[in-house]
């Protein structure tokens, strides 16, 4: 009994431990690099990681039910590619509407295949990853889609009152919205219940298929939003955009303390996770380490975070 209480405490502490890690890393970076110390650079880090962070919000919901979505990056890219011409022709709102709707629908398809088609989530989302990316190449032929009005850059690169990045604001506001949604709606509590014990939740009257479909659809919408912010940042949609972003999103959630098998964790802590991931990359760059190494680090960090998680809960 005491043993289990210990785990509970350690799980709760996880997010705070990570806040300390984050602060430690910021201090360390500040010592290493004089450039780092400026407040502008700190806000920059917030800006740079907002796209990963937005996608991690969707991924976090999916992970809380006990699965993952490998198609996140591809959905983000496809949303960008489809929305880019609409941004140009019909304006910002139309572009966002189409892009997010697309992500929502692709997520819906993922969810339907997993629940009604009874196919393993791994297979479905791996397949969707290929299909969505394939559609991108069919549409673009590999040529970047351009023609987005320059003023739209405000979403991707703009600053409120000249200092706070717009994209970071979108990220943080949505994070709070998601946290409230998970805490204060039946849907949110059922997400946690499904991750806690799917069969028990089902037998208690939770419509597990519906919840899972919704989770994937919401996830898809967030992935798409991430892709759209990127598109408005670089003012074009490239076919290889958002490659393996799902990995960074998963890593952010795991580092933040969202259990890989679901049921535990706070979606807000994915913010800390995303910032830690971002800082690691930032430090690698500052130390002049090749960007190829970043992939290696992302993979290693995921494995390490999950290992820490499973070792600490085995005790």
């Amino acid at each position, binding site marked *: 009994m005491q043993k289990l209480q210990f785990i509970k405490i350690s799980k709760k502490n996880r997010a705070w431990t990570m806040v300390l890690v984050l602060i430690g890393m910021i201090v360390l970076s500040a010592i290493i690099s004089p450039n780092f110390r400026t407040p502008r650079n700190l806000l920059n880090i917030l800006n740079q990681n907002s796209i990963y962070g937005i996608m991690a919000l969707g991924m976090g919901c999916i992970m809380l039910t006990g699965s993952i979505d490998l198609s996140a990056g591809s959905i983000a890219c496809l949303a960008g590619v489809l929305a880019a011409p609409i941004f140009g022709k019909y304006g910002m709102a139309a572009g966002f509407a189409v892009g997010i709707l697309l992500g929502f629908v692709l997520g819906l398809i993922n969810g339907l295949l997993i629940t009604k088609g009874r196919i393993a989530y791994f297979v479905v989302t791996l397949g969707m990853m290929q299909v969505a990316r394939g559609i991108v190449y069919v549409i673009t032929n590999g040529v970047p889609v351009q023609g987005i009005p320059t003023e739209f850059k405000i979403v991707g690169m703009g600053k409120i009152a000249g200092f706070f990045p717009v994209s970071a604001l979108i990220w943080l506001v949505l994070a709070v919205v998601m946290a409230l949604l998970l805490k204060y709606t039946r849907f949110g509590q059922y997400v946690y219940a499904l991750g806690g014990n799917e*069969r028990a939740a089902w037998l208690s009257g939770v419509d597990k298929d519906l919840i899972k479909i919704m989770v994937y659809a919401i996830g898809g919408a967030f992935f798409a939003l991430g892709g759209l912010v990127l598109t408005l940042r670089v003012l074009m949609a490239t076919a290889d955009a958002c490659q393996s972003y799902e990995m960074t999103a998963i890593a952010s959630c795991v580092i933040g303390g969202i*259990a890989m098998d679901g049921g535990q964790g706070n979606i807000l802590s994915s913010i800390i996770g995303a910032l830690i991931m971002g800082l690691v990359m930032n430090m690698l760059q500052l130390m002049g380490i090749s960007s190829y190494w970043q992939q290696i680090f992302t993979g290693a960090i995921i494995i390490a975070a999950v290992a820490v998680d499973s070792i600490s809960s085995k005790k």
Partner: protein
Amino acid sequence: MVNEKIVLSMDNITKTFGGVPAIENVCFQLEKGEVHALIGANGAGKSTLMKVMNGIYTGYTGEIILDGKKVEFHNPIDAQNAGIAMIHQELDLVPPMTVYSNIYLGREPVKNCRVDFKKMEKDAQKLLDELGFKVSSSAIVADLSPAQQQLVLIARCVALDARVIVMDEPTSSLSFNETEELFKIIKDLANKEKSIIYISHYLEEVFRVSDRITVLRNGKNVVTELTENCTVEKLVKWMVGDIESFNKKYIRENKFDEICIEAKNFTQLHGCVEDVSFALHKGEVLGIAGVVGTGRTELAKMIIGAEKKKSGTIYLNGKKLKLPNPAVAVKNSIAMVPEDRKLEGLITKRTIADNISVSSFGRHLKAGFIDYKLSNESVDKMINYMHVLCTGRDHIVTALSGGNQQKVIMGRWLNVKPKVLILDQPTRGVDVGAKAEIYELINQMAEEGTSILLITDEMEEMINLCDRLLIMRRGKIIDEFDNSGRVLTKAKLLEAMVG
């Protein structure tokens, strides 16, 4: 005093789980070439004893002596190598592989660094022919009938050169003719100096096939007797004991003039439940009695839509209902407390509050959002009402004791007050104090008009709580007892279940 005939002897075996002995000082002796039946009511300790013998459970006290030598098995492979093989109820074969591969699994003959399939096929066929089994050694196991699969398992035991073969409920998936065949084979094996331990719930089978019978009750030896000296009455008496219950009998004043729920013609899609119908009145506690594996749990799950069915209709207050999944059942006020608390009952990893309120968030909404003040109030009320021992509602549920976990699950439904509540083994793994409290809860819910379907292995609680009892056997309801005076005896009940 060495008895040449004794192959295996288990002396004073005790195995405890969490401080509670499942078997205590049990002795069991097996002679060469005998068919020895092991019987006892549900939970008497038969499988525990066999699992100790088979090396699945370690950490027991007492001695196992095989051929005059003390042995200690750490896993089933040890036991297998020593000549003890077990045929489990759930026929553990690898279905997509051939019969010969299954027979020699893990011991494939090798020639020139390659598996010698030809030799395997030939040897296996020879073995099957010798045993007189009509099975082709190159057939794929998945294509075989359950009866043939059982023959493959027996052949595997013989190929292993097992001297002791344990058969756990071998007839559960066999037809009448197949059962007859199996009995012949068992006799044959015994004639070939193999010793068979035959576990069954059904006394008629035991009389047909065994030479001796050992009866266990509440984890203790009762008697070992030659089959020819036994009668059904004697065995039943040994299985239940002389002591009738002195515990509290819950007699309610309810009048049963209103049928609450009616189940008609329930048949399982792949399974044993066949054409079961019953009616449950408002405020009635209806017990379903039967041995393990008779389809009680499957029936319960079919009713709430958690198990596939071939046919079956539910009428709630006379209205026909379609219940494709538990969510719809819960919406219609039909709920179940499942048998397996860890796997199906508790939302592990979550708190007591989460576990109690998961089914009742709908009642605590304010403008579509959960009002935690209201929700937590009702959780706290439930925790106090049921005396859940905990530090508070944010206690992780798996950190509670079994009895308190069960109370939390009961609380989930008490909070909702369903019209129909199905309880599957509500007191399994629960200490005596909590048991009494759970009985009180059941009694109270029935008094307040909830119709309860009670499935339990404990005959005593069934007799003390139920207004009426249905006896289930091999997937069918074969009898019904009125228990309005709570005067049914355990012996009568058990005889109906196994006799």
